């Protein structure tokens, strides 16, 4: 392998890093919008995996097809989640996930 060529491993490392960052963001952020950004990172890390596998594994176009579907679904999910966050802001006047806990006994 040439020293400068970018192979499958590079993409997998990148996607694992993105995935871990996404999970870290979901677990540590208090603001609901930032939590949702973590979710976007997770979804896009999976997308990188799909495209990298389909490019380097000669698996046909299934992976790229899946990535297209995921992009659309991620947009739909973001739209719905942000609408819900807006709804929360109307009733609680903040969007911190740890302060929205009226449903506990």
């Amino acid at each position, binding site marked *: 392998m040439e020293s400068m060529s970018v192979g499958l491993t590079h993409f997998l490392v990148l996607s694992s890093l993105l995935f871990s960052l996404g999970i870290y963001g979901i677990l540590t952020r208090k603001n609901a919008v930032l939590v949702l950004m973590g979710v976007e990172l997770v979804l896009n890390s999976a997308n990188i995996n799909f495209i990298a596998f389909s490019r380097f594994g000669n698996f046909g176009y299934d992976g790229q097809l899946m990535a297209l579907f995921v992009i659309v679904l991620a947009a739909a999910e973001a739209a719905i989640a942000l609408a819900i966050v807006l709804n929360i802001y109307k009733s609680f006047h903040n969007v911190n996930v740890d302060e929205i806990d009226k449903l506990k*006994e």
Partner: protein
Amino acid sequence: MGNIIINDLWSFLKPEIFIAGGIFIILLADLVIRDNRKAIHFTALIILIAAFASALLQMGTESFIFYLGKGNNHGLLAVDPMSTFIKLITIFSTILIVIFTITSEEFKGSKFKSGEFYTLLFGMLLGMLLLSSGADLIIIYVSLELLSLSSYVLAGFIAGSNRSSEASLKYVIYGATSSGIMLFGISILYGLTGTTNLYAIHTILVSPHVNYLTLGLSILMIFIGIGFKISAVPFHFWTPDVYEGSPLPVTAYLSVASKAAGFALLIRFIKVGFISSVGTNGFWNFYENFDWQLFLIILSIASMTVGNLTALWQNNVKRMLAYSSIAHAGYMLLAIAVLSEKGMLAFLVYIAIYMFMNLGAFYAVMLVANKKGNEEISSFAGLGYKNPYLAFGLSIFLISLTGIPPTGGFIGKLYLFIALLDGDMYWPALIALLNTVISLYYYVRIIKEMYLTKALDDTTIETSKTELTFMFALVAPILVFGIYFTPLVNFCTNFVRILGF
């Protein structure tokens, strides 16, 4: 060629076509009919009954739809007896939920947009129908998201209610995270096998070259998405809050239909992806790549134990039923963990009865909450004297949820234990039995509150004749199946098969 595809669609996808068309019809009806809200409920019911009838008519058919082409004999969707059964369950429970919605007090008034509600409900149902026959990871993920996205909105459907908004926020955060992790698992599985079709994955997993560690990791990640849908421990943290905060018809729907679709996905994933053949004795033979039995037994025992023990401390009946539904997910998971045709039969019998008894219990709780405005256990005090019919119905549902004869719940548990003993699973059977005893305590606590505790106030809890008739229409199958259960079991036996196995 084009005609063949259209004929295929029409002969195998009728329920899905009716529901997808129904979404447009309801959106249009909502625009056209402004003053008569009853017409929308009625339209929804008619579409659902048509879909149910068409699902009944396709009983026994087995076929792939949307072939992948290029000499490939696998398709995107698999119509088979198991998926037809789950479709019947989900469509039937949607019919019952429409009736819940009509009588719900939370959904009264001008703020309730019935057109939007049914559009989302039908979107959810369409997701479940596609999920139960999805044979390709792409369509599985897309339909899972269709189901989830609609249910996030439905959980927060009561405008201006803090509880409802909070429920939808928690649902969307947990749901988006778990489906994201599931997607990452799917991408790893795609990298390992080079295909997204479950049937093609099956042929590739035969080879010993697959890295077991990576495969196990991807299975665990995919299971997070499935476990979230069926609310199995340890993916259950959203369940109590979302069930308590959502409007009651939505809670009841999540606890039955959404769970049934999740189980359909789990069964197809295991049976198509990982077993080599079904033995003559009905047990599934596995490749040595993942210990499904141990994995499922641990999760199911954790689910039933955590669900039942936590339910003991709850004072809100809706929250208590949420924990009880976690426990029931554990029982159903245990039936699948036998990994045999008998276990499948036990699962189908269990979920059919579970649909009647759980929806019935939620309906009776809703009738009380309609008058009281909350679901605290103290609201049930003296119900046995205030409204004997309602209290009697609720008692039957709770006894059936415990699993005491002569109710249907007993038959569900009976077939579960038969399957467990048949598979030589004595320890799990014993733990399930102990769990049933624990669950008796909190179910009977409600019955005790209704008959032995004096009411704190003298508000009457009146129910109309229609509401009572509908409740007893749910009591009847539970009592009938408790004594005369052969027809139900024979009916379920027809639906054990999965396409290809």
